[in-house]
Protein backbone atom coordinates (compact mmCIF):
# COMPACT_ATOMS: atom_id res chain seq x y z
CA UNK A 1 0.00 0.00 0.00
CA UNK A 2 1.14 3.51 -0.79
CA UNK A 3 2.24 5.38 2.35
CA UNK A 4 1.17 8.99 2.84
CA UNK A 5 3.02 11.39 5.15
CA UNK A 6 0.53 10.90 7.96
CA UNK A 7 0.68 7.12 7.56
CA UNK A 8 4.46 7.26 8.04
CA UNK A 9 4.26 9.38 11.20
CA UNK A 10 1.38 7.27 12.53
CA UNK A 11 3.47 4.13 11.93
CA UNK A 12 6.33 5.71 13.90
CA UNK A 13 4.01 6.19 16.87
CA UNK A 14 2.33 2.78 16.55
CA UNK A 15 5.63 0.90 16.19
CA UNK A 16 7.05 2.64 19.26
CA UNK A 17 3.91 1.92 21.27
CA UNK A 18 4.23 -1.73 20.24
CA UNK A 19 7.63 -1.76 21.95
CA UNK A 20 9.81 -1.62 18.85
CA UNK A 21 12.95 0.52 18.63
CA UNK A 22 12.11 3.30 16.17
CA UNK A 23 14.00 6.06 14.35
CA UNK A 24 12.65 8.84 12.15
CA UNK A 25 14.69 10.16 9.22
CA UNK A 26 13.79 13.55 7.71
CA UNK A 27 15.20 15.32 4.65
CA UNK A 28 16.37 18.66 6.11
CA UNK A 29 18.28 20.21 3.20
CA UNK A 30 18.65 19.61 -0.51
CA UNK A 31 20.94 21.05 -3.20
CA UNK A 32 20.53 20.63 -6.91
CA UNK A 33 18.19 18.00 -8.24
CA UNK A 34 16.85 16.10 -5.23
CA UNK A 35 14.36 13.26 -5.52
CA UNK A 36 12.25 14.05 -2.44
CA UNK A 37 11.51 17.51 -1.01
CA UNK A 38 12.63 18.85 2.37
CA UNK A 39 10.42 17.42 5.11
CA UNK A 40 10.06 13.94 3.55
CA UNK A 41 10.12 11.16 6.13
CA UNK A 42 11.34 7.59 6.44
CA UNK A 43 10.53 5.61 9.57
CA UNK A 44 12.76 2.69 10.50
CA UNK A 45 12.55 0.04 13.24
CA UNK A 46 15.38 -1.85 14.94
CA UNK A 47 14.87 -4.85 12.66
CA UNK A 48 15.33 -2.79 9.52
CA UNK A 49 11.65 -2.53 8.54
CA UNK A 50 10.90 0.84 6.98
CA UNK A 51 8.12 2.96 5.53
CA UNK A 52 8.31 6.14 3.46
CA UNK A 53 11.31 7.56 1.59
CA UNK A 54 14.01 10.24 1.66
CA UNK A 55 15.16 9.68 -1.93
CA UNK A 56 14.09 7.69 -4.95
CA UNK A 57 15.39 4.54 -3.30
CA UNK A 58 19.07 5.46 -3.84
CA UNK A 59 20.14 5.99 -0.23
CA UNK A 60 17.42 4.34 1.86
CA UNK A 61 19.61 1.29 2.51
CA UNK A 62 22.35 3.42 4.06
CA UNK A 63 19.84 5.46 6.08
CA UNK A 64 18.31 2.27 7.49
CA UNK A 65 21.76 1.03 8.60
CA UNK A 66 22.58 4.37 10.24
CA UNK A 67 19.11 4.52 11.83
CA UNK A 68 19.67 1.19 13.59
CA UNK A 69 22.82 2.75 15.14
CA UNK A 70 20.79 5.78 16.21
CA UNK A 71 18.18 3.52 17.82
CA UNK A 72 20.96 1.77 19.81
CA UNK A 73 22.90 4.89 20.82
CA UNK A 74 19.94 7.28 21.21
CA UNK A 75 22.09 9.99 19.62
CA UNK A 76 20.62 11.76 16.63
CA UNK A 77 22.83 12.45 13.60
CA UNK A 78 22.88 14.27 10.29
CA UNK A 79 23.79 12.26 7.17
CA UNK A 80 24.81 13.78 3.88
CA UNK A 81 24.48 12.05 0.52
CA UNK A 82 25.58 13.23 -2.86
CA UNK A 83 28.06 12.84 -5.64
CA UNK A 84 30.91 14.14 -3.46
CA UNK A 85 30.21 11.62 -0.72
CA UNK A 86 30.12 8.54 -2.86
CA UNK A 87 33.36 7.16 -1.47
CA UNK A 88 32.43 7.89 2.12
CA UNK A 89 29.02 6.25 1.96
CA UNK A 90 29.36 3.85 -0.96
CA UNK A 91 26.01 5.23 -2.07
CA UNK A 92 25.11 8.34 -3.93
CA UNK A 93 22.36 10.09 -5.76
CA UNK A 94 22.41 9.27 -9.45
CA UNK A 95 20.36 12.42 -10.07
CA UNK A 96 23.43 14.48 -9.13
CA UNK A 97 21.91 16.31 -6.19
CA UNK A 98 22.94 16.39 -2.55
CA UNK A 99 20.66 15.80 0.40
CA UNK A 100 21.10 16.08 4.14
CA UNK A 101 19.03 13.74 6.31
CA UNK A 102 18.41 14.11 10.06
CA UNK A 103 18.02 10.79 11.86
CA UNK A 104 16.56 10.78 15.36
CA UNK A 105 15.34 8.13 17.78
CA UNK A 106 11.68 8.07 18.80
CA UNK A 107 11.86 7.76 22.58
Amino acid sequence: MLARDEDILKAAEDWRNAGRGVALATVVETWGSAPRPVGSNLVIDNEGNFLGSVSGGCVEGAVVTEAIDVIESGKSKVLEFGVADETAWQVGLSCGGTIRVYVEKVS
Partner: protein
Amino acid sequence: MKLDILHTLNTERAARRAVFIITDVDSGAQRLVKAADIAGDALFETLEKRLRMGKSGMDETAQGRVFITVHVPSPRLVIAGAVHISQALAPIAQMLGYDVTIVDPRTAFASQERFPDVKVIAEWPDVALPPLNVDRYTAFVALTHDPKIDDPALLHALARDCFYIGALGSKKTHAKRNDRLKAAGLTDANLARIHAPIGLDIGAISPSEIAVSIMGEIVQSLRQKPARTAKAEAA
Protein backbone atom coordinates in the same frame (compact mmCIF):
# COMPACT_ATOMS: atom_id res chain seq x y z
CA MET B 1 11.56 12.79 18.68
CA LYS B 2 9.82 12.36 22.00
CA LEU B 3 6.82 10.06 21.81
CA ASP B 4 4.51 12.70 23.31
CA ILE B 5 5.52 15.20 20.59
CA LEU B 6 4.90 12.55 17.94
CA HIS B 7 1.51 11.74 19.49
CA THR B 8 0.44 15.41 19.51
CA LEU B 9 1.66 15.76 15.91
CA ASN B 10 -0.45 12.81 14.79
CA THR B 11 -3.49 14.01 16.74
CA GLU B 12 -3.32 17.49 15.19
CA ARG B 13 -2.86 16.05 11.70
CA ALA B 14 -5.84 13.74 12.15
CA ALA B 15 -7.92 16.80 13.13
CA ARG B 16 -6.70 18.61 9.97
CA ARG B 17 -4.88 21.35 11.92
CA ALA B 18 -1.48 22.65 10.81
CA VAL B 19 1.45 22.08 13.19
CA PHE B 20 5.19 22.83 13.32
CA ILE B 21 8.12 20.84 14.67
CA ILE B 22 11.19 22.97 15.41
CA THR B 23 14.44 21.02 15.71
CA ASP B 24 17.98 22.07 16.59
CA VAL B 25 19.75 19.41 14.54
CA ASP B 26 23.01 19.91 16.44
CA SER B 27 21.65 19.42 19.95
CA GLY B 28 18.55 17.40 19.10
CA ALA B 29 16.38 19.86 21.09
CA GLN B 30 12.88 19.87 19.70
CA ARG B 31 9.52 21.51 20.27
CA LEU B 32 6.07 21.46 18.73
CA VAL B 33 4.02 24.56 17.94
CA LYS B 34 0.36 24.38 16.92
CA ALA B 35 -0.63 26.74 14.10
CA ALA B 36 -3.23 28.27 16.43
CA ASP B 37 -0.45 29.26 18.88
CA ILE B 38 2.09 30.92 16.58
CA ALA B 39 0.98 34.50 17.33
CA GLY B 40 2.75 34.40 20.69
CA ASP B 41 5.83 32.53 19.49
CA ALA B 42 9.32 34.06 19.29
CA LEU B 43 9.58 32.74 15.73
CA PHE B 44 6.17 34.10 14.68
CA GLU B 45 7.29 35.71 11.41
CA THR B 46 9.25 32.67 10.28
CA LEU B 47 6.45 30.28 11.19
CA GLU B 48 3.82 32.44 9.52
CA LYS B 49 5.81 32.48 6.30
CA ARG B 50 6.38 28.73 6.37
CA LEU B 51 2.69 28.12 6.99
CA ARG B 52 1.74 30.34 4.06
CA MET B 53 4.20 28.59 1.75
CA GLY B 54 3.50 25.13 3.17
CA LYS B 55 7.26 24.50 2.98
CA SER B 56 9.64 22.99 5.54
CA GLY B 57 13.27 24.08 5.77
CA MET B 58 16.27 25.45 7.67
CA ASP B 59 16.05 28.91 9.25
CA GLU B 60 18.57 31.19 10.92
CA THR B 61 17.06 32.42 14.20
CA ALA B 62 18.23 34.32 17.27
CA GLN B 63 18.56 30.90 18.93
CA GLY B 64 20.74 29.57 16.10
CA ARG B 65 20.06 27.49 13.04
CA VAL B 66 16.93 25.34 13.31
CA PHE B 67 15.02 22.98 11.05
CA ILE B 68 11.32 23.79 10.86
CA THR B 69 8.89 21.19 9.58
CA VAL B 70 5.44 22.47 8.75
CA HIS B 71 2.76 19.83 8.59
CA VAL B 72 -0.27 21.15 6.73
CA PRO B 73 -3.37 18.98 6.39
CA SER B 74 -3.37 16.51 3.49
CA PRO B 75 -5.43 17.56 0.51
CA ARG B 76 -8.96 16.31 0.36
CA LEU B 77 -11.45 16.00 -2.48
CA VAL B 78 -15.18 16.54 -2.13
CA ILE B 79 -17.27 15.62 -5.17
CA ALA B 80 -20.86 16.75 -5.62
CA GLY B 81 -22.34 14.13 -7.93
CA ALA B 82 -22.09 10.34 -7.76
CA VAL B 83 -21.85 10.22 -11.56
CA HIS B 84 -19.86 8.19 -14.08
CA ILE B 85 -16.87 10.61 -14.02
CA SER B 86 -16.79 10.34 -10.22
CA GLN B 87 -16.37 6.57 -10.46
CA ALA B 88 -13.00 7.18 -12.13
CA LEU B 89 -12.07 10.41 -10.30
CA ALA B 90 -12.48 8.97 -6.79
CA PRO B 91 -9.94 6.13 -7.13
CA ILE B 92 -7.47 8.37 -9.02
CA ALA B 93 -7.61 10.94 -6.21
CA GLN B 94 -7.26 8.22 -3.59
CA MET B 95 -4.14 6.95 -5.33
CA LEU B 96 -2.72 10.49 -5.05
CA GLY B 97 -3.34 10.44 -1.30
CA TYR B 98 -6.55 12.47 -1.19
CA ASP B 99 -9.36 11.65 1.21
CA VAL B 100 -12.43 11.50 -1.01
CA THR B 101 -16.07 12.18 -0.12
CA ILE B 102 -18.95 12.04 -2.58
CA VAL B 103 -22.22 13.86 -1.97
CA ASP B 104 -25.36 13.24 -4.02
CA PRO B 105 -28.97 13.19 -2.78
CA ARG B 106 -30.01 10.82 -5.56
CA THR B 107 -29.84 7.43 -3.87
CA ALA B 108 -29.81 5.57 -7.20
CA PHE B 109 -26.46 7.27 -7.92
CA ALA B 110 -25.02 7.55 -4.41
CA SER B 111 -24.77 3.86 -3.63
CA GLN B 112 -21.88 2.10 -1.94
CA GLU B 113 -22.11 -0.54 -4.68
CA ARG B 114 -21.21 2.02 -7.34
CA PHE B 115 -18.42 3.44 -5.13
CA PRO B 116 -16.68 0.73 -3.15
CA ASP B 117 -14.06 2.12 -0.69
CA VAL B 118 -15.30 5.73 -0.99
CA LYS B 119 -17.24 7.71 1.59
CA VAL B 120 -20.62 8.37 -0.04
CA ILE B 121 -23.27 10.62 1.53
CA ALA B 122 -26.76 10.37 0.00
CA GLU B 123 -27.95 13.80 1.19
CA TRP B 124 -28.50 17.28 -0.22
CA PRO B 125 -25.43 19.54 -0.03
CA ASP B 126 -26.96 21.77 2.67
CA VAL B 127 -27.21 18.72 4.94
CA ALA B 128 -24.12 16.79 3.87
CA LEU B 129 -21.49 19.54 3.53
CA PRO B 130 -21.46 21.54 6.82
CA PRO B 131 -20.30 18.57 8.98
CA LEU B 132 -17.44 17.80 6.56
CA ASN B 133 -15.40 20.84 7.65
CA VAL B 134 -14.52 21.71 4.08
CA ASP B 135 -11.38 23.90 4.28
CA ARG B 136 -8.71 25.56 2.15
CA TYR B 137 -6.87 22.24 1.89
CA THR B 138 -9.91 20.80 0.11
CA ALA B 139 -10.49 20.51 -3.64
CA PHE B 140 -14.15 20.71 -4.58
CA VAL B 141 -15.80 19.61 -7.80
CA ALA B 142 -19.45 19.84 -8.85
CA LEU B 143 -20.32 17.23 -11.47
CA THR B 144 -24.11 16.68 -11.38
CA HIS B 145 -25.20 19.12 -14.13
CA ASP B 146 -28.17 19.80 -11.84
CA PRO B 147 -28.30 23.39 -10.50
CA LYS B 148 -30.32 22.24 -7.50
CA ILE B 149 -27.29 20.23 -6.36
CA ASP B 150 -24.30 21.99 -7.96
CA ASP B 151 -25.21 25.59 -7.07
CA PRO B 152 -25.49 25.20 -3.27
CA ALA B 153 -22.39 22.98 -3.34
CA LEU B 154 -20.37 25.66 -5.17
CA LEU B 155 -21.60 28.38 -2.79
CA HIS B 156 -20.36 26.28 0.12
CA ALA B 157 -16.97 25.62 -1.54
CA LEU B 158 -16.44 29.34 -2.22
CA ALA B 159 -17.39 30.28 1.34
CA ARG B 160 -14.84 27.75 2.66
CA ASP B 161 -12.02 29.03 0.40
CA CYS B 162 -11.22 25.65 -1.18
CA PHE B 163 -7.87 25.65 -3.01
CA TYR B 164 -9.56 24.29 -6.12
CA ILE B 165 -13.17 24.62 -7.21
CA GLY B 166 -14.33 23.12 -10.50
CA ALA B 167 -17.70 22.74 -12.14
CA LEU B 168 -18.71 20.53 -15.04
CA GLY B 169 -20.53 22.09 -17.95
CA SER B 170 -19.98 23.81 -21.27
CA LYS B 171 -19.20 27.52 -21.57
CA LYS B 172 -22.90 28.11 -22.21
CA THR B 173 -23.94 26.11 -19.14
CA HIS B 174 -21.36 27.93 -17.06
CA ALA B 175 -22.55 31.36 -18.24
CA LYS B 176 -26.05 30.49 -17.08
CA ARG B 177 -24.62 29.21 -13.78
CA ASN B 178 -22.72 32.47 -13.30
CA ASP B 179 -25.95 34.42 -13.79
CA ARG B 180 -27.66 32.35 -11.09
CA LEU B 181 -24.71 32.61 -8.66
CA LYS B 182 -24.50 36.37 -9.21
CA ALA B 183 -28.19 36.60 -8.36
CA ALA B 184 -27.31 34.70 -5.18
CA GLY B 185 -24.88 37.52 -4.28
CA LEU B 186 -21.50 36.35 -5.60
CA THR B 187 -19.03 38.81 -7.13
CA ASP B 188 -17.07 38.42 -10.36
CA ALA B 189 -13.96 37.73 -8.25
CA ASN B 190 -15.77 34.84 -6.55
CA LEU B 191 -16.93 33.44 -9.87
CA ALA B 192 -13.44 33.69 -11.35
CA ARG B 193 -12.31 31.13 -8.78
CA ILE B 194 -14.49 28.42 -10.36
CA HIS B 195 -12.65 26.35 -12.98
CA ALA B 196 -15.14 25.90 -15.81
CA PRO B 197 -15.19 24.20 -18.19
CA ILE B 198 -13.56 21.87 -15.70
CA GLY B 199 -10.20 20.15 -16.19
CA LEU B 200 -7.04 20.62 -18.23
CA ASP B 201 -7.55 20.77 -21.97
CA ILE B 202 -6.20 17.36 -23.02
CA GLY B 203 -9.00 16.51 -25.40
CA ALA B 204 -10.64 14.20 -22.86
CA ILE B 205 -13.76 12.40 -24.09
CA SER B 206 -14.49 9.36 -21.92
CA PRO B 207 -15.50 9.75 -18.24
CA SER B 208 -12.12 8.34 -17.16
CA GLU B 209 -10.23 10.77 -19.40
CA ILE B 210 -12.24 13.68 -18.02
CA ALA B 211 -11.37 12.44 -14.52
CA VAL B 212 -7.67 12.54 -15.44
CA SER B 213 -8.01 16.09 -16.80
CA ILE B 214 -9.78 17.20 -13.60
CA MET B 215 -7.19 15.55 -11.37
CA GLY B 216 -4.37 17.14 -13.38
CA GLU B 217 -5.94 20.56 -12.87
CA ILE B 218 -6.33 19.93 -9.13
CA VAL B 219 -2.64 18.98 -8.80
CA GLN B 220 -1.68 22.09 -10.79
CA SER B 221 -3.71 24.30 -8.45
CA LEU B 222 -2.11 22.71 -5.39
CA ARG B 223 1.50 22.75 -6.58
CA GLN B 224 1.92 25.69 -8.94
CA LYS B 225 0.35 28.31 -6.71
CA PRO B 226 1.46 28.89 -3.12
CA ALA B 227 -1.09 27.98 -0.48
CA ARG B 228 -3.50 30.85 0.03
CA THR B 229 -2.82 33.09 2.99
CA ALA B 230 -3.29 31.42 6.33
CA LYS B 231 -3.69 34.64 8.30
CA ALA B 232 -7.31 33.94 9.20
CA GLU B 233 -6.31 30.55 10.53
CA ALA B 234 -3.31 31.87 12.44
CA ALA B 235 -5.16 34.82 13.99
